């Protein structure tokens, strides 16, 4: 039974959950109180590491390990940046967490900050989430009034301020180092790594950057323990994931499921299957950057390793369903247009390579394509892979390669070959 528990989203829909009193009535801030009042930072870190909480933003890097990289003693301040710049096409899970339960995020921020020794946290939220940004700011005020933020949190010596910063609409600012640049008031260009943000981050200080959903998991790990958490999902991949299903299914929306649920189950049981008269053709399983899966490939466990082995990725858990009537050339066009538009322009392969691919695809869409174009696209996409300054190059190249490989015949047919 525990396996089916929706601890993150279970309370969603409860009236005025975003208000602190309602959240408190439902056990809110108990985990933060426990952490700050009765746990040592090392104990929290140990627990989060034991829980195998992997990042929910896309890359799936273990949160505990990331926190552990921050030097425990530093002569500089340390920062937490919550990445709420939810820009990956198809992804809308963080929006739900923050709008329904902003205090859950704040609680996670308190525990994380206490664990790492941080006194200033930022929530970098995408500019379009205006209502949510205001809701978060209100929640921060409420938490401050209660003594959960500010000085002497829960009567302890621990102090923490949280600031909401709104982005200006660039996809690249969801990349952690571009986010830092943007937060510093600069152009959102990714930084060269190393050094990594854990040692040189915001304003050159050690910085932890985590996705909203990752941070929202932290209070549950503290309240119920790492063992419970790993039992919720898979041993190496603990907890649930919030999957966002979009496309021609009967019930599009978010579904909180344990890691390890099969993709077929998600689409056909939870999301209610395809709309009447629609037939499944393909699925993008983890946000637009994740390589596409065909209808034959959906009997797969939704976890980091299984999808990686299938040549795709779990990414942000955004499942985009594509039906038979949708032209793959249209899909390809949407993908290349998006990445060409969102490339920051800093490094050569992404700036010119993705734009070049997009130019070819747009030409193909205008009926001027040829079979050699597909070869050029594959060659360019492979050339971009692993050679760009930030992961955006891979993010663009992977779905393009996937579509061109798996739907080559359809693309050729659409070009009249």
């Amino acid at each position, binding site marked *: 039974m525990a396996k089916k528990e929706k601890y993150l989203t279970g309370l969603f829909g409860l009236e005025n959950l975003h208000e602190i009193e309602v959240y408190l009535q439902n056990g809110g801030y108990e985990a933060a109180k426990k952490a700050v009042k009765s746990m040592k930072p090392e104990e929290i870190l140990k627990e989060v590491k034991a829980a195998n909480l992997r990042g929910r933003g896309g890359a799936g890097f273990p949160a505990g390990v990331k926190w552990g990289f921050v030097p425990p003693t530093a002569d500089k301040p340390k920062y937490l940046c919550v990445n709420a710049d939810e820009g990956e096409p198809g992804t809308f899970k963080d929006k739900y967490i923050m709008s329904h339960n902003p205090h859950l995020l704040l609680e996670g921020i308190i525990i994380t900050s206490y664990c790492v020794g941080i006194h200033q946290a930022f929530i970098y939220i995408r500019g379009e989430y205006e209502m949510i940004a205001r809701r978060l700011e209100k929640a921060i005020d409420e938490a401050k009034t209660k003594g959960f933020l500010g000085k002497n949190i829960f009567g302890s010596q621990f102090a923490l301020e949280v600031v909401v910063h709104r982005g200006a609409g660039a996809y690249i600012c969801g990349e952690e180092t571009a986010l830092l640049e943007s937060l510093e008031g600069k152009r959102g260009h990714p930084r060269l790594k190393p050094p990594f943000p854990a040692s040189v981050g915001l304003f050159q200080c050690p910085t932890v950057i985590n996705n909203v959903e990752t941070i929202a998991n932290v209070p549950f790990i503290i309240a119920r323990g790492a063992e419970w958490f790993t039992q919720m999902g898979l041993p190496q991949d603990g907890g649930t994931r919030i999957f966002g299903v979009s496309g021609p299914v009967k019930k599009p929306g978010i579904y909180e499921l344990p890691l390890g649920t099969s993709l077929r189950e998600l689409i056909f049981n939870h999301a209610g299957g395809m709309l009447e008269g629609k037939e499944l053709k393909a699925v993008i399983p983890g946000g637009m950057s994740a390589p596409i899966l065909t209808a034959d490939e959906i009997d797969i466990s939704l976890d980091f390793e299984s999808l990686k082995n299938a040549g795709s990725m779990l990414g942000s858990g955004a499942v985009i369903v594509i039906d038979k009537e949708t032209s793959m050339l249209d899909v390809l066009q949407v993908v290349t247009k998006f990445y060409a538009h*969102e*490339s*920051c*322009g800093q490094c*050569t392969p992404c*700036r*010119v*390579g993705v734009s*070049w691919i997009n130019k070819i695809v747009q030409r193909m869409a205008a009926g001027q394509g040829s079979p050699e174009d597909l070869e050029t696209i594959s060659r360019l996409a492979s050339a971009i892979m692993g*050679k760009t300054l930030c992961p955006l190059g891979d993010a663009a190249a992977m779905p393009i390669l996937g579509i061109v490989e798996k739907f080559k015949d359809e693309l050729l047919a659409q070009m009249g070959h």
Partner: protein
Amino acid sequence: MVKITIDGQQVEVKEGLTILKAAESIGIEIPHLCFHPAFPPEGSCRLCLVEIEGRPKLELACSTIVQEGMNIYTQSERVREARQVVLELLLAEHPPDCPICDKAGDCHLQDYYEEHGLFDSHFWENKERRAKKVPLGKNLILDRERCILCTRCVRFLKEITRTGELGVFQRGIHSEIDYFPGQPVNNNYSGNLAELCPVGAITDKDFRFQTRSWFLVSKPTICPHCSRACSIYIDFHPGFPRIELDKYVYRLRARENPEINDYWICDFGRYNYSYLEKNRVVSVLVNRDGQLQEDEWDKQIELLGKKLKELYLKKRTNRIGVILHSALTNEELYLAKKIFREDLPEVNLYLIDPPEGKGDNWLLTSSRTPNLKGMELIGLNPQKFPPENGFNELEMMIIFAYHPLGDGHYAQLKSVLEEVPFSVLFTAHQTTLMNQVTVVLPALLLAEKEGSVINVEGKLQQFKAALHPPGNAHSEGEALLAIGRNLGINFSFYRNMRSTADILGKLSQDISFFEGQSD
């Protein structure tokens, strides 16, 4: 020290070096465009990717620090392929207008294509159309189609001059360099951007469409326009048979010198080069009844020596006035000291330099001569002109004049010269003083001389002549040496001075500061 292997070659290099620098130290060049040694690595051009054994991805040579036991390949199949792709991508959107590009011949992209590219283009799409001549400031034009967005220009202004006029605007393929509103690049270092640009995107208005870079000969010399004495190159055109060019020197460039000016020079020094050719005095002139008539160098030098000897024998050397300037080399100043302080007693030495200008708190100093410090160290101690206590009645005046950018500072000499029966003017440029003196001897500029100067920070630089002397002009040093010999007061000293090196050697024995400074 760290032991690494590069292309099968085992080497020990300093800890903390990047792969790029480590490879460079053993003569392996890794192509790069955005990296410049003056700035921290940027990693955006992706041309310097190399293969490191055991690492799945290619790594940047410009930013990856060498580690013990690293096995690096700079020529493997994967590396060459990656390089070729980057070049292919850069050239996809870059116009092939090398035949009309000022950078052709000096262009890194062109060179790298020759060396690492040589592919056939597969780019059938329309290139982006962009602005081709955007004025970035008073000296610079930007061609956005040629720009490869290495951002060296942006970083120079951000990190070196800290003026920050330029930035990257727009995004993705539409990214472009521009200045922030109302803030064109008009600082005193703007000219460096044209040099820094690895392609022909930023060109110098002064050099645009003037000549092809491969016609130019580069010679190292020193910038004489202030006391920083920056290391520079003079790029001149040796000319074509049967074709007259209206110009000889086409541009000045910074010459790398970590001790003095790094990779940079200021605009004041860079663009003030027409003085090298304009208004030069190229022949010996003698004033006969108000007419300037050509004469011979040796004859006039001999005459001058004779006149000096006469006054010496009559013990009236206190009737001699000598006007110096601090654009003379150490060697010349040392000879002047020998003659006018040691051989001939009581000579009146004065200093007239070009007027001070405004310094910029970086390279450009307020004093506008390259060897003020040298003059001080050699100990000539000339008086200010006009002297506070007035003059003795002078029977002879020798003027070493220096006025590359205007001769206003010699106006004060006119009334004095009227009273002097015999006067000699050494000058590289024409001046109204020429009508007031008895003899005019054409002199040389620093670029035409061999010798040394000491800059404001006490750094000694030696140099050879970069340009040939015009016409019948001779260096002041040569004249002084001849005068010293002709006087014969200390003949053996001058006889042993066969080269500037001899003079500097003697100078180093004499004045401790110079000891061990020369090479």
